[in-house]
């Protein structure tokens, strides 16, 4: 049904969504925790900074990233000193761009989820002798699992649909940076409407399935919570 180039683009899209979502979760969870633990001008400034990708057009972020990642930039020279090649037009550059672009989709659900864990509960657990590791593994992790899950799915789904910024950073190179969204654009330009229909339908179905699954999971968790409350 799909040609090798299409499988490649599909796989690259899934790989990018997986990599960037997992890395984002790992890197932003401590920050989201800190942001959820109080209000201050500093926290608000960081929150505003992290939400910027939601309001800025992808071209703004793409433009700055192209400058930052190009081989002659200070950033690329710094990377070269560490033995790393410039990131523009490479998969690693796409991961970085996707992470930046999906930041609010991960930080905001995490922040909300962490914010629902009452400080009193943490203080009481500490008073009963729980150490930080026990707090994280036995209290924070189980309570924030739904938020982590939502953040991951939102970031994953968002990355599947990326186009502008990844086109600017990646350059639509088959097998290296060409994602499914770019391949669809390519097929439209080439007047291959049948392939464009097929790939668009595939992406539509896949994105719908992911979101449907997310809502089903959330509903399941809500029902579970209600049952636990009624049992108490």
């Amino acid at each position, binding site marked *: *049904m*799909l040609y*090798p180039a299409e*499988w*490649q683009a*599909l*796989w*690259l899209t899934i*790989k990018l969504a997986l990599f960037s979502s997992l890395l984002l979760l790992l890197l932003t969870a401590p920050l989201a925790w800190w942001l959820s633990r109080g209000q201050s001008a500093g926290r608000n400034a960081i929150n505003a900074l992290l939400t910027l990708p939601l309001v800025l057009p992808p071209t703004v972020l793409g433009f700055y990233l*192209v400058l930052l*990642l*190009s*081989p002659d930039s200070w950033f*690329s020279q710094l990377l070269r000193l560490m033995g790393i090649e*410039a990131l*523009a*037009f490479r*998969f690693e550059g796409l991961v970085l761009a996707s992470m930046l672009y999906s930041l609010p989709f991960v930080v905001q659900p995490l922040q909300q989820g962490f914010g629902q864990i009452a400080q009193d509960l943490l203080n009481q657990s500490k008073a009963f002798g729980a150490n930080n590791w026990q707090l994280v593994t036995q209290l924070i992790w189980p309570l924030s699992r739904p938020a982590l899950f939502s953040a991951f799915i939102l970031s994953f789904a968002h990355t599947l649909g990326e186009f502008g910024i990844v086109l600017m950073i990646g*350059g*639509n*190179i*088959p*097998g*290296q940076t060409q994602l499914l969204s770019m391949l669809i654009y*390519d097929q*439209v*330009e*080439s*007047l*291959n*409407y*049948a*392939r464009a229909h097929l790939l668009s339908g595939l992406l539509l179905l896949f994105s719908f399935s992911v979101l449907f699954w997310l809502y089903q999971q959330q509903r399941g968790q809500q029902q579970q919570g209600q049952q636990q409350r009624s049992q108490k």
Partner: protein
Amino acid sequence: MRGLKLIFACVLVSCHVSASQLIAAASDLRLVLPVLLQQYLAETGVSIEPVFASSGKLSQQIQHGAPFSLFLAADSLYTNNLLQQCSPKQHCQTGFYGQGQLVIWYHHRFQTAEQALKHSQHIAIADPNHAPYGKAALAYLQQHALWPELEAKIRRSDNAALVLHMLSTGQAEVGLIGHALMPEARLQQLLPQSQQQQLQLLQKLGRTEVVPAQFYPPIRHSWFYRPETKQPEIKDFLQWILAPQQQQFWTDAGFKVEHH
């Protein structure tokens, strides 16, 4: 099943087109260049993967580190700029491979191109800021006596190939594109079925005329070559496309070819 195997292969090893060499090409070559690449693959066994965009965009990408050792541009302005930025030790080269021609497509309900320009609602052209055929189309329209009226009807698309898409989907009744996007019948027969059908549909819906060359600045298609150790076969490919045996191809694609 073959697809699943490929996915698993991609999971195990990073899914890169290591066997293919990459080249960048102007959007007006989007339909015809794959035909040439197929011929080259059949003759030499070397697979070359093209990346298409407007010449201006590709030139920007190459300046910012895109890994193309050959760039087939639609304007020598871009290849000359890239050459100037090359250091002598990079041994970059440029050259001319053909003069592009602008064609006007207009819907059958208009009798002539003049009438079409006057009475149509939308005229599709590529973005003149970074697409050479867009620049040529704008120069042609600006010389027209009705320019103030025509200006309001212009619909810009990202590149020359998207103008064709606008015409085939009825978003504009008149369009100015590169001849290579409406190649001669002999070359059209070699295109994939879906592209042939779309071009035939456009031919049924409207007429195509070559715009006389005196109405727009010359569209000098040029190549830019930057030797890369990772892509050693590109030089051979460049020599192959410039060889006299390929002249018929370029003529069928709507280029005026001179001696290289």
